[in-house]
């Protein structure tokens, strides 16, 4: 007798649209029950629940990372203003004339160092707060997050500002927009310009912290099993 196959699209969704780590056991369990005569509608319902569950638990597990990325990126307009004031200072102007031939690579290196410092300071704060309030993060994933932040930010920042330059004059009032002069004003500013500045910082911090949440299972780890399979209560 030919074996019934579940809806292919649902199986594809189960394999590709569920978030985070998932092993094959769920696929197998659904196939097993479906093979016992369950309907296509049942299979679709199970797959939908699996997708929703995986995304909820995935985001739930990353709640602290999401919150921290949001809070840290709130500081970025102030950081951005500080960098802008350094860039326009007379000392930098003199340096640019002095090292005119190698100014572009020097400026790029300086830009990278300054932004990397912002992210690394944030990651250090996150690691400390996480250790105190939740549990210590794995050293390896923290190290990785430091490098991810440093490497991903130039890409996101470049992309964001490229798009920004294209639409700068088509969004009413954006080219005349200015950040508030004070630190508190810049941090609490929720205008489009401030959020536009925040976006690459938020995205890069979130991507860097994403991998610090450990999801995978480790098979074969020695755990203290209860030896008897009979009811021991």
């Amino acid at each position: 007798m030919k074996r019934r196959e579940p809806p292919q699209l649902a199986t594809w969704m189960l394999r590709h649209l569920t978030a985070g780590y998932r092993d094959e056991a769920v696929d197998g369990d659904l196939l097993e029950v479906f093979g016992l005569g369950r309907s296509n509608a049942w299979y679709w319902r199970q797959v939908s629940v699996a997708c929703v569950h995986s995304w909820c638990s995935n985001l739930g597990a990353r709640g602290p990372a999401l919150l921290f990325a949001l809070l840290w990126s709130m500081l970025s307009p102030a950081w951005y203003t500080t960098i802008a004031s350094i860039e326009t200072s007379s000392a930098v102007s003199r340096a640019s004339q002095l090292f005119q031939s190698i100014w572009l690579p020097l400026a790029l290196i300086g830009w990278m160092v300054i932004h990397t410092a912002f992210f690394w300071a944030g990651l250090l704060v996150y690691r400390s707060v996480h250790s105190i309030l939740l549990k210590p993060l794995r050293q390896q994933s923290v190290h990785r997050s430091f490098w991810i932040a440093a490497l991903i930010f130039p890409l996101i920042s470049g992309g964001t500002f490229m798009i920004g330059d294209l639409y700068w004059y088509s969004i009413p009032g954006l080219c005349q927009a200015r950040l508030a002069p004070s630190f508190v004003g810049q941090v609490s500013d929720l205008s489009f310009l401030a959020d536009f500045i925040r976006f690459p910082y938020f995205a890069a911090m979130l991507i860097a912290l994403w991998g610090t949440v450990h999801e995978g299972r480790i098979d074969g780890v020695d755990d203290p099993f209860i030896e008897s399979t009979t009811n021991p209560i």
Partner: protein
Amino acid sequence: MSERGYLGELELMLLLAVIHLGEEAYGVPIAGELGKYRKSEVAVSSVYAALERLEAKGLITSALGDPTPERGGKAKRFFRITKEGMRQVHEMRCALTRLWQTLPDMKMDAPKES
């Protein structure tokens, strides 16, 4: 009392199902047992989500079995209760038993509305 507090209803049901099923405690029969306790169908993926939380708390542990053809070559994930899980189940049972013992005999019929 444990620092983590008592088990929730779903957690307790899952742990009891895992104990009851013994060597055969994997997703499908656990969902079936839970469905019997709750008198309604339970999605297999919901069971896995709850089991993963229990595993993260160290109350159960799991290991992949061998792939089987009727499951499209996919392995089963077998769950077993840990000593800590068993301790918490036992603690919960004692607490509930003590609570029941303080109550007078009750009839299970719902009171009739006048």
